[in-house]
């Protein structure tokens, strides 16, 4: 069954400053969207606000999955409604083991061990690294692979990737991209990849590209958008007057 994630008129403040100023985006499961924009345009804010990060204050707007409003829900309920965030810098949670976290998140305790090993193999992560505490003592690339293992076990409807390509070597990048591409095929995972590099998009081919400037989407389209970006840079996409 196809689900639709709809973000409308979203305004979000961080530390008292408004960063998202009326953000609109709609996508469905089984689609890959890329969200591109310069530093400070509000891309990461979107990912954090959607998943209920405590530092982000929603001022106005609506975020729904199949019409169900998410913004009043806790971070847990949003995750259970189908949102998964892969972070730019996955947080360390000392003392907590990945298996315990996954079981508490709803994974089947009887099969989670085997599922984790399977998923680790698919992204080229040594399974013993997942016996360490969540993201502790892992390199940048290992952490992002570890989050793909979480994704594979939890099978969310939508995955938000927050600049997952920054600081990632080419091999790690392509295993992450390959895992996501197959997630789209396996359970019609919808992928929203936030990036300001084109590198990720070579491996993870988007159906739709959105350009964001100053807290709003200023252009939406197909691969031609990426080409135009290549030629003109972000300056070619003017932010509308508020």
């Amino acid at each position, binding site marked *: 069954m196809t689900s639709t994630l709809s973000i409308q008129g979203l305004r979000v403040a961080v530390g008292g400053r408004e960063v998202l100023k009326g953000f609109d985006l709609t996508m469905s499961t089984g689609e890959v969207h890329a969200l591109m924009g310069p530093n400070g345009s509000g891309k990461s804010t979107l990912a954090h606000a959607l998943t209920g990060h405590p530092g982000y204050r929603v001022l106005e707007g609506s975020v729904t999955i199949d019409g169900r409003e998410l913004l009043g829900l806790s971070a*847990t309920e949003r995750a259970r409604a189908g949102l998964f965030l892969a972070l730019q810098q996955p947080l360390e*949670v000392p003392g907590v083991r990945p298996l315990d976290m996954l079981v508490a998140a709803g994974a089947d305790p009887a099969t989670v061990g085997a599922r984790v090993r399977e998923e680790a193999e698919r992204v080229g992560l040594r399974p013993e690294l997942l016996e360490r505490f969540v993201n502790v003592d892992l390199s940048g690339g290992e952490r992002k692979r570890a989050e793909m293992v979480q994704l594979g076990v939890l099978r969310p409807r939508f995955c938000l990737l927050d600049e997952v390509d920054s600081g990632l070597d080419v091999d790690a990048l392509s295993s992450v991209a390959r895992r996501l591409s197959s997630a789209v095929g396996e359970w019609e995972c919808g992928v929203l990849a936030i990036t300001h590099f084109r590198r990720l998009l070579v491996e993870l081919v988007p159906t739709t590209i959105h350009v964001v400037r100053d807290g709003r989407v200023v252009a939406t389209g197909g691969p031609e958008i990426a080409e135009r970006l290549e030629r003109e840079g972000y300056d070619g996409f003017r932010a509308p007057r508020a």
Partner: protein
Amino acid sequence: MTTFADSAAAVLDAHPGGGRREAWRAFEEVGLPSASDEVWRYTPLGELGLERHAVATSPSPAAPSDAARRLAAGAGVVLTVVDGYLAPVGELPEGLSVSVDESGRSHTGQALVERYANDAFSLLNAALAPATTVVRVEPGAILAGPVVVLDLAGDGASFARLRVEVGRGAEAVVLEYLEGGRDGLVVPLSEYAVDADGSLTLVTYQRLDESAWQVARTTGFVERDGRLRQAVIGLGGHYDRSRNDAELRGPGAANELRTTYLGRGDQVHDFRTHQLHLAPRTNSRLLSKGAVAERSRSVYTGLIEIEKGATRTDARQTNHNLLLSPSAHADSVPNLDIRENDVLCAHASSVGPLDALQRWYLESRGVGRVDAQRLMIQGFFYEMLEALPDALAAPIEADVASAVGEVARAAQVGS
């Protein structure tokens, strides 16, 4: 109703020897502490009501709980002590002996009244405990299974006294477990002596009734190249005070002390430590971790003292506290007293709530609030439980996990 003073007088009349009268007189001179004494500043002494606690003149009819039986299941030898009275002992493995000492003397040879002069509660123990239970591991003996001492307290004033002696080159694991003490006053006094090259792994596990007052004191004496690893876990008690000292007396002696406490309701956990380095190349590692929820509070006060001549000593103390509600409170007071230059010495302490971003990370994976808190609190205690001896770890971990589950439900953290 029998008062404390009347019942104490009856005990002294029935058992006048072993320095009891001297200890009682010393107690009367010293008197109970008051809140104006710095080391008793955080103690709700007004709630103690010493007079309402009658001293047990014979063991109360206490039977070990299921929790005690689970611990005993992992034991090589189980000793049951009720209100300080040692129950008949079964067959013992070679190299282990258990006896009762009524001499009123410390391991050091001093009379208890001298050794514990000015410490009101230890003096009460010296006056009123029926005897010292002595667990002795012969030189060179290596015990296969842990010795579990079940210290059961009735609902009056209960005084147990234990001395563990580990001979030269011997190795043993001992668990001292305390339960009972409903509305009671529980005052255990323990000494642990590790002779040269000996090794003692000790767990002091306090699960008294949540109405009990405990004032406990333990002292380790470690000789040349001996090793005392001690874990103290405080879950029970209304007021739980535990003073854990170690004297590192011979070169190369080592002490590792881990204290763990979890406060709920109106509990107070009050931990005092004193690592006394008397000889060169001695080593102490102290890690104290506690969590306080609801209206509970904790106190950690630790002193590392390094004597002149204790060169190349290496001493560390660390205390971390989790605050799980706005009404909970933790005090952390590490102290150093160093009279030798050629040493390494460090201390660290922290008091704070669970990390809100770590919790969000777990929640953003779909973990519920209470489960996220439970996993994080359990993670905070992970290194404490990891160090427990294998044969005893499972039931203690299960107890701590269930206490953590309750605390996680009650916790109110940040945002």
